[in-house]
């Protein structure tokens, strides 16, 4: 027997870009984070050919989870066609040979930055969110060692201090994104920079959500059918953005999260943030065959 018979043929890189041990570590950490919902698990966070802070955490999780049959969708700020989303999608397809899609209903794995799609995700879908700052306690406790002790003790009183300050200063809760939320009644997490509009979608959702911060090297998860409750005062109710009455100027859909587009005459036009949802609405209007899924928000309201 020769040495070459025992070794594998040379490859430019391993499947899915990351090497086997990196993927094994990530799988173990994902299992851990699913076992303790909302608890941040440290992980090694390998190098990927992208700058830290551009979604490396999400990318590593996606690369670990894909197989050649996984249909991948990548969203950046709600859009599938922005540079970051297109590049990540193409990269995953190139290194893992996965089919890609833009349709939320077709996707098996959705990597997203800043948004959760408007259509309800199913049990067999996985949502991977890119997180810049995984530590909800950072604004009130800059010392990370003490912050970890506070998580261990469920000492979250100070989180409300932030909300108190905002109400005192501005008359209402100003926290627009990364709204701190209590997962499964135990750990407070920051649900990545998704808007307040999207936080209720995580509550008792059917799909698995994995949140990964590549630069900060922390991973946490919201397993299916897990309570996610935004932190609120007992006498100040939680409010989502007031987008329910806005109409998209391109697709004509109403009651979804919108992007504001300033116009020359100092007014604003609104465009639906979930670009694929807008595309579907336009195609339906033009009588093309499209499958439209059930949405989380109905007539701009989240059903109880």
């Amino acid at each position: 027997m020769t040495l070459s018979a025992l070794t594998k043929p040379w490859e430019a890189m391993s499947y899915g870009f990351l090497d086997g041990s990196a993927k094994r570590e990530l799988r173990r950490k994902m299992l851990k984070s699913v076992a303790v919902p909302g608890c941040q698990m440290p992980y090694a966070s390998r190098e990927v050919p992208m700058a830290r802070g551009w979604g490396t955490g999400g990318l590593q999780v996606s690369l670990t989870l894909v197989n050649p049959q996984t249909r991948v969708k990548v969203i950046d700020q709600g859009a599938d066609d922005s540079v970051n989303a297109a590049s990540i999608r193409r990269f995953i397809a190139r290194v893992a040979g996965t089919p890609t899609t833009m349709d939320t209903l077709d996707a098996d794995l959705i990597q997203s930055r800043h948004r959760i799609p408007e259509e309800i995700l199913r049990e067999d879908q996985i949502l991977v969110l890119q997180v810049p700052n995984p530590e909800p306690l950072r604004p009130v406790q800059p010392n990370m060692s003490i912050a970890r002790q506070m998580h261990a003790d469920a000492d979250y009183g100070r989180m409300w201090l932030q909300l108190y300050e905002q109400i005192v200063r501005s008359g209402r809760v100003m926290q627009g994104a990364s709204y701190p939320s209590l997962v499964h009644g135990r750990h407070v997490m920051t649900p990545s920079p998704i808007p307040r509009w999207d936080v209720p979608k995580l509550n008792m959702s059917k799909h698995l959500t994995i949140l990964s911060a590549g630069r900060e090297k922390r991973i946490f998860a919201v397993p299916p059918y897990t309570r996610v409750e935004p932190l609120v005062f007992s006498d100040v109710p939680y409010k989502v953005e007031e987008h329910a009455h806005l109409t998209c100027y391109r697709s004509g859909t109403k009651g979804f999260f919108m992007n504001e587009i300033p116009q020359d005459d100092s007014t604003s036009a609104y465009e639906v943030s979930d670009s694929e949802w807008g595309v579907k609405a336009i195609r339906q209007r033009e009588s093309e065959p499209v499958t439209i899924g059930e949405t989380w928000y109905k007539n701009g309201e989240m059903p109880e």
Partner: protein
Amino acid sequence: MTLTLDAPRIVRTRALLQVSNVSKSYGPVQALRNVSAHAYPGEVLGIVGESGSGKSTLLRMMNLEETPDQGSYTLDLPDVQGNLFDLDRFARRMLCATRIGIVYQNPHLGLLMKHSSSGNVAERLLVAGERSFATLRAKATEALEASEFPLDRLDAPPIELSGGMQQRVQLAKAIALEPALLLLDEPTTGLDVSVQALVLDTLKRLQQDRKITMVIVSHDLGVIRTLADRVMVMRRGEVVETGLADQIFQDPQHAYTQQLVHAKL
């Protein structure tokens, strides 16, 4: 007819705070050597001594921030039992938040400088589990009012306030939950004399109104004389003399106390 006389109150009442035989050393430095102290409900205990005498270490232990090498600490409260130094981190935090208030010499230790003043007071209530905004606001205002803080600066961050005001915010935070024990670590050091007098005045009035047990640490005999009922003199980690305030100031027994009183007067 026989007349039955009750024993004097001081004999009948049990001490609220009891620190027994506490020793602590930091490497070669013995900060405290077999120190015992007690305070009765509603009493003000003054601790005097020069820098490095261990008085602040003792106070930090009373606030459960430090654990001694040996010794015990009990508080005579309905739901508090046993040696408090044996409590775990979680129980300590709850006890400190609800039963003990502290005012530090340096406001940076006790306050979140960039949050609002009322927010600083509200934090105490939040840690204790209050979750209604209206209640928080009302209670924070009430505590700040009791410590004679000007209410038009309610939401100013402490970093923009004067030293005297910062101490008042600390005081409001300490008394917000009506603690059984109030610890004061050099509360007026670093303030100018007129502001010092005003803060002392507030402290004295609070003590009379609320009958809080206080332990006040200072190197300034004037402060101790104004506030304290009983005085403990410390030197090099040991208690050299204890007695009623008048006794100590009029008739000091220990040579060191005599020096101290003479130096002041």
